[in-house]
């Protein structure tokens, strides 16, 4: 039940339980009175749910059956990296050396137990390859105007397993091409500065993945007022339409979504919208939280906390595809999503619950009905423009 409504609901039932006589107003009358105030705190993510498996599709059992979370990064001749949890630790949160060391210990422990999680780091990295058992992606930026050779040298120095290259403009294409020739590990390109353009030219360079930071993009003028749902949906559509025209459908670049994804529920929704891997910053927050504790420099305790949190998250993640009737996390798709918000339906092309059609499809069907009944007289281009305008384009 809605947090803001629940005490009104309780009051209403208690009133009946106390007196046993009819009340003067129903609980819905009272909820409606406060609704305008409640609507201020809308977060579209809360209006999106997944549909579970029941009779028409039986569920898997995460306690008794194998549920796959593994994902491989790297296409074509690139060296492959396999993550056992589809998360890569990444976020625009500063870390001190204690936090970084604790993450290193936690990720190593996870990797030793066959729970490989990746990490993306910028700047100097003090975790050496020989002591590291998890994949590290070094983030480099074309904004520094460095020569590709210098950028690669930086990566080799830190023995990065993969690269995340921040795309700036068309000049970045040459740098990526050079990096691709010289680096055999996976290259992910962060397109957040130019999104949604340049997808095709970046994918033509055989990059292994696209990284999209929804937080950055929704703050940009191009996506002003739009939600992360719209960004993810557009990113997935761009990737799909690129590969639709190619024959290499079996070996596609992956989509990494980063931003405000900080709960298991959101990870599942983002994956359903089309993300293959999710940039996850909560581990960094947990590592950083020890600054405020009584033992801020106890790296082993911090690492233990990060480790335990990740194990809990992994167990939650295993439960979700199972409950939807899948044995593989990566089978979750947009068709598993439903929404109780017109806005979310429009932005994410998500079917509305109960009717299993998007808002725009329903409007389209009604327009067809108006036209066939001659209730309205419209040209094809008018219909197209009207749907675009209702869709907020």
């Amino acid at each position, binding site marked *: 039940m809605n947090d803001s409504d629940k005490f009104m609901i309780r009051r209403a039932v208690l009133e009946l*339980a106390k007196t046993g006589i009819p009340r003067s107003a129903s609980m819905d009358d009272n909820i*409606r009175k406060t609704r305008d105030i409640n609507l201020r705190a809308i977060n579209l993510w809360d209006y999106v749910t997944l549909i579970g498996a029941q009779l028409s599709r039986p*569920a898997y*059992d995460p306690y008794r059956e194998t549920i796959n979370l593994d994902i491989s990064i790297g296409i074509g001749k690139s060296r492959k990296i396999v993550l056992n949890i589809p998360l890569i630790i990444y976020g625009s949160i500063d870390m001190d050396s204690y936090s970084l060391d604790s993450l290193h210990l936690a990720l190593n422990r996870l990797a030793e137990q066959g729970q490989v999680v990746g990490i993306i780091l910028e700047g100097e990295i003090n975790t050496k390859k020989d002591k590291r058992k998890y994949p590290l992606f070094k983030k480099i930026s074309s904004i520094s105007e460095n020569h590709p050779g210098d950028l690669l040298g930086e990566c080799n120095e830190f023995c990065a397993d993969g690269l995340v290259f921040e795309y700036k403009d068309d000049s970045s294409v040459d740098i990526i091409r050079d990096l691709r020739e010289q680096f055999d590990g996976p290259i992910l390109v962060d397109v957040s500065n130019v999104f949604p353009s340049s997808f095709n030219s970046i994918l033509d360079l055989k990059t292994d993945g696209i990284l999209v930071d929804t937080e950055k993009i929704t703050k940009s003028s191009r996506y002003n007022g739009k939600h992360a749902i719209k960004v993810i949906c557009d990113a997935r559509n761009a990737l799909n339409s690129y590969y639709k025209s190619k024959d290499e459908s079996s070996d596609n670049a992956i989509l990494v979504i980063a931003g405000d994804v900080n709960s298991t529920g959101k990870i599942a929704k983002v994956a359903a919208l089309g993300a293959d891997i999710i940039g996850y910053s909560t581990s960094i927050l947990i590592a950083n939280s020890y600054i405020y504790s009584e033992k801020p420099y106890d790296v082993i305790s911090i690492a233990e906390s990060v480790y335990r949190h990740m194990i809990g998250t992994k167990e939650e993640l295993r*439960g979700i595809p199972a409950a939807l009737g899948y044995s593989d996390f990566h089978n979750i798709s947009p068709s598993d999503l439903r929404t109780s918000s017109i806005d979310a339906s429009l932005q994410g092309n998500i079917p509305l619950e109960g009717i299993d059609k998007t808002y725009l499809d329903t409007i389209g069907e009604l327009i067809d009905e108006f036209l066939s009944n001659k209730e309205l007289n419209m040209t094809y281009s008018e219909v197209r423009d009207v749907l675009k305008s209702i869709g907020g384009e």
Partner: protein
Amino acid sequence: MPYSKDVLDLKRHILKAAETSRSYFDLNKLIVDVRKVNDSEVPYSGLGARSPNDYFPSIKIIGSEIKPKENDVSYNDIDTTFILGGRYSSNVISTNVPFFVSGMSYGSLKLPAKIALHLALNKLAKEGINMIMNTGEGGALPWELYGSEESCSNVSKKRHESILDYADRLLKEHNLESIDRDLLFSRLYPLVTQYASGRFWKDPSYLLNADAIEIKIGQGAKIGHGGLLPGPKVTDLVAENRGIPSYKAAHSPSRHLDILGPEDLVAKILELREITDWKSPIIVKVGCSHVYDDIEIILKSYADAASIDGFVGGTGAAPWELRDIIGINTVPSLIPSRKAIEDYYSITAKDEFKLIVHGSVWDSERIAKCIALGANGVGIGTGFLLSMGCTLVQDCYTNVCPAGLTGSYEKLDIEQSVTGIVNYVKGTLSELKNIAGSLGRKSINDLRKDDLVATDELSSMLCGLMLEDGVTFKDLVKEKVKKAIDSRNRRINERLENK
């Protein structure tokens, strides 16, 4: 368990880290992260999902009154009958209450709460208010099943003695030895036993002594996830009732191991029909997700009724994240359910099939809205807990409940709880009669969609309801389209003029 100092400290520290880094963080989920850090386990929560839109407040019943404005008006003669069974079962349950107690098992609820419900329903039955109770997944209590001589004939003498001995130990353990046994061992209300994926019952009398059987495929709070009773709640006596080890979490399979598709459901129902000699009505319960398909399957099986449980449907324990992200709300689920039923009966003669809904229904107006939208009956769980004093802290998965309902049994006042339940039922029933009566209906079952209006576009669209100002969704779209064409043409003209 209450959160330890370590957990609360950690919560504060993560919050500070989030504030300092100015990163967005979901405060509602902060405790989930902290609990994972604490024990690396999947965090659970109790009661229903956090749904920002359950539609009920966006739907109004036009011109109805839950309390007549004129003091001398009485709608006592309004018919509120609900009949279950008769489609395939030879027995029929006829009650005068169209709402009933949803499945809440012993284990999930502590014994005093279960006894309060039992005594309250007996008291109501004596006053002529006959309400159905569902046992929940964890098996029934001795006095629920073995209260009559006839019911004892379904078990051996030795087994009956062991059941009575178990009842004695239950009452002793909960300091309830002074309770009147004659009063306790008389069940006057219809009982539905739940047949879930965790088969927590020991002999066929569990099925034979009940008035109806509900096959639980899933529930709204944890769709696709089996029943769950956390270890600390599996006390010796709960474990004995369920036939499982004590203090170990009881994870029921997420699906019936012998029901993997429609044909298995038919086979299972036929098996239960054979056991009960085709007497007991059989309900099939699903969590709301693929509602149309699921109802279609149930209709084509040998079931007497389908039961759907919406996204906000409650639970004693569910994985927190899973509860909050899987499922769809009750109101939009009613529409495809009704459509599946109408489609089925468009080619077949109508029979006694019934649709029961659960989830986010707590008062008379919501019950009336469900019936107007096509439900025949409504299951209520959390409403009964609230009437016994539930504080909605949602820690039902622990053994500590501030109201003494799901833990801390010594705190619950059974007598007061019985009064609360009886008043809640009577008040709700009176209000329901007032709603139907004030609309000029003779029966609550005469409520129709036309009695409802929507206050927003989405509810109007999903439920096919007229908006408050008398406009239909179709009219609204037509207006929108006309405006969009006007604005488009204006823009084109302006562009042409500028050229």
